[in-house]
């Protein structure tokens, strides 16, 4: 089951600052919804443990993340793969940065593939859950990047592939 998501927002920080934030696992990973712990293997590889739950099905997911692309200050992309509730998840999340109106426009897009029995047991709930969690992540990013200049409103869209 594929969940695709995309959107954009603007922040009053320059692209270098935004890029630096997004590519620092210590800053980026704690914003993941349900974040519990993280271990950093090297500057581009880290493992996060997050709590996940669909209705009464709750558990912890361990996701190995890789900063697969880092083109300062225009693009960052993460790839991840992990296990959850007897199943698996693989994801990509990319951020394209462009200078805009004294700040940075962040265009983000990604896709999560969910594997395993979760898709059967809770397949119908994964879309709204995915949308909710992506929104949380983006809201968290904006809040963290807000600084003194504030942010523009964000908008998240999800679509099933």
């Amino acid at each position, binding site marked *: 089951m594929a969940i695709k998501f995309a959107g954009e927002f603007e922040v009053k920080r320059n692209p270098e600052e935004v890029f630096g934030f997004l590519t620092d696992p210590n800053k980026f990973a704690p914003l993941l919804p349900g974040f519990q712990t993280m271990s950093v293997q090297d500057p581009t590889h880290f493992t996060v443990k997050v709590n996940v739950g669909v209705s009464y099905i709750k558990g912890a997911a361990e996701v190995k993340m890789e900063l697969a692309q880092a083109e300062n200050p225009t693009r960052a992309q993460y790839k991840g793969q992990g296990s959850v509730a007897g199943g698996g998840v693989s994801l990509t999340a990319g951020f394209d940065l462009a200078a805009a109106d004294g700040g940075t426009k962040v265009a983000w897009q990604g896709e999560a593939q969910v594997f*395993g029995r979760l898709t059967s047991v809770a397949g119908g709930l994964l879309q709204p859950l995915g949308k909710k969690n992506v929104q949380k992540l983006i809201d968290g990013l904006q809040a963290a990047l807000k600084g003194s200049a504030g942010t523009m409103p964000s908008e998240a869209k999800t679509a099933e592939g």
Partner: protein
Amino acid sequence: MSPEGDKKNWVGKPLPRKEENRLLRGRGKFADDIKMREMLYLRFVRSPYAHAKIVSVDVSAAEAVPGVVCTLTGAEVAPQVQPFIEIAPDPGGKIKDYALAVSKVRYQGEPVAAVMAESPGIADDAAELVQVEYEALDPVVDAEEALKDASILHEEAGTNRVWNGVFEYGDVEKALKEAASVVSIDRLHFHRFSSTPLENNVVIAQWNPKDERIYYWCNNSFPSFAIQFLSAHLNVHIDRIRVETSDIGGSFGIKITSYPQMAVCALASKKAGGRPIKWVETRSEHITSSAHGNERTFRDTRVALDKDGVITAIASRHIDDCGAYPRYEPLGCVIWSQVFPGVYRFKNARIDFTQTVTNKCPVGPNRGYSRMQHLWFLERVVDICAHELGIPADEMRLRNYIRPEEFPYTTPNGCVYDSGNYPKMLQVAKGLIGWDDWKKKQAAARKEGHLIGLGIGTTLDSGTNNFGQSQIVNPGAPFSGNSQGANCKLDIYGEVVVAVGSCPQGQGHETTAAQVVADVLNIHPDLITVRTGFDTERNVHTGFSGTYASQFAVSGLSAVHGAAQKLKAEMKRLAAFVLETQEDDIEFGTGAQGPELRAKSTGKSINYWGLANIVNVNSAVLPVEMHDVTLNCRYIWRAPFKVPDKVRKYGNLTLTYASQLHIAVVEIDRDTFIPHILDYVAVDDCGTVINPPIVEGQVYGATAHGIGAALMESCVYDAVGNMLTSTFSDYTPITAVNMPKVKYGHIETPSPHSYSGAKGMGEGGAAPIHTISAALQDALFAEGIIVDDSFNNADSLFRAMVGKEIGQVGKLVKLERRAQ
């Protein structure tokens, strides 16, 4: 003493099932009822991915759990065994199939490791701790995509194609050229579904270190096939494998392919020092990982018809999806051709048949195996042509049916249909359902906007395979013919005991075998004990023994009949000696001291105890010339088959052809799109009926299975190979609540190919799937919709009627009329 008269005192009678007393009181003995000292419980760790490399398997956390005795992984198992036998020639023959995935997984639910523990709960919990690291690969879930080989499941085969062959007979191109009209159908699709036995798969295995034998207690439904695979796989002489089955709560063919799990249980027992291992499959495991029925896509179909709507030729391309591993396949690539023309008379045909693997659960011989897909295709072709040409569905069939006077009928590919009368079945079915009245009601209802359709499904249940057809898919396959064994004896105290190499799952073998023997010996069936279940140690099995393919009434009962006849001959000879008379003076019956043989000329008699006593424990009274009398008679029945012509793909592939004709009246709710069955008739012809209630029960069962498949049951996968219907919440098997009232009728056209005139039955040819598709199309054709899929629920009907996504006649079907 009752006279020895009518040889059919019991065959044909509605004798209550002998099994009922035991089963309905909860006294059946099923595999899961077996508990053994020091038994361990096995839990599989299964892949969440449809296609992935296995990077690592870490069982250390699971093995550290108190109560866990050992674990097994694919990497550990592979060096100990041979890959399972592949029936296919290359490229399919190159596939390496192990019971636990070794380096990659190929379907969601594939076993990757096994955990053995002191209790099922501990095994479950520990299995959750096994860490498997995967590297996801591109999955292929669509058969036509799989054939592009963009992502290959089995690198050793080099392609996803398992098998390809062209079945061509007559002159197709000439018939197409000379046709008055040609109907082209772009694509039809037969969906993937399975069976829902009350009892899931169960295996108990013990690899006994004392005698180095493997003991199985299980519910596999084709044990003689399983032991052939297991023996080669485990490097164990086949005589060192003992398989016992007891009562089985349904199989429908799906349990034939449980041999991989049987292998794991044996290897686990070996590792655990010979402790017995029990594996009881969960329902979700059964739905996702046991076996599904074959999914099939029919492309580029062209149908030639004459000016009267008589089909003269069919050309088509069929693509069969066998899931991740072929296992019983590619037998399905030829088994469909047992019913090559269905019930129709066309002589020219070309079917280009290809089978492919995909990242889905492997298939197994699901009830109606391989033939129902083809029969559904033919029925769709007939109905689509009828609608295109404006010929009523019943009239279209009458113009195309094989005629009663043509039996035995040789099909274009050399199969011999033994008997049948399809027009009569249609007549009976139309009478039972009130066809003419329904046509009037339908016309009136349509004026009010109701969508009501009447559908006819005519189908075949071919029984008793000629395994020589395996040589059509693989000329090197060492199988041909068919046989079944039985033993009939007088035990020491004169009890009549029958043993058969079948493993019934509700078909009433105890009862029907007793009926046959009762007629031979002229005694009451209650005086006959029929051993239930299969046991290799009984020595009554052949390489074909098991319960599958609608054959027990022919193969099993012929073996029983043969064994009983041998016993009867020995009893008569012995009685003649004891009673000092001639054999033709001896009659069988029941007297004051129970079943006995009597000299008609003197009135002297000897009962069964007396005969058995002489042979077994008082043998000094026997003269030497009677020493060959054992009263313990084994008989092997062999079907009169020849090896088919492998090049022409020609020959008789099946011995008997039961037939079914169903009619359904279906209404589609315009608001909810839910199809409702308003009326339903099932007419069956299985030749001479041995036990009417058993036959009727099988008809109801097969009808329920087919209605479920047509409207409720579908194995749905998403684009990456997640099975979305892994529980009863989504895979919704039909229950009594969903069943319409079925009007039952039957005719009898006795088979000349079985001693009793009976034909194998029980699979039902999946008649409801064809019938409901036909009824839905009748309801929807005026709306410009063709029923192009065998599964039709409210969702798919909505997508066809409102979304216009599927089933649009203009896209699917083209009619070319030619000036004559």
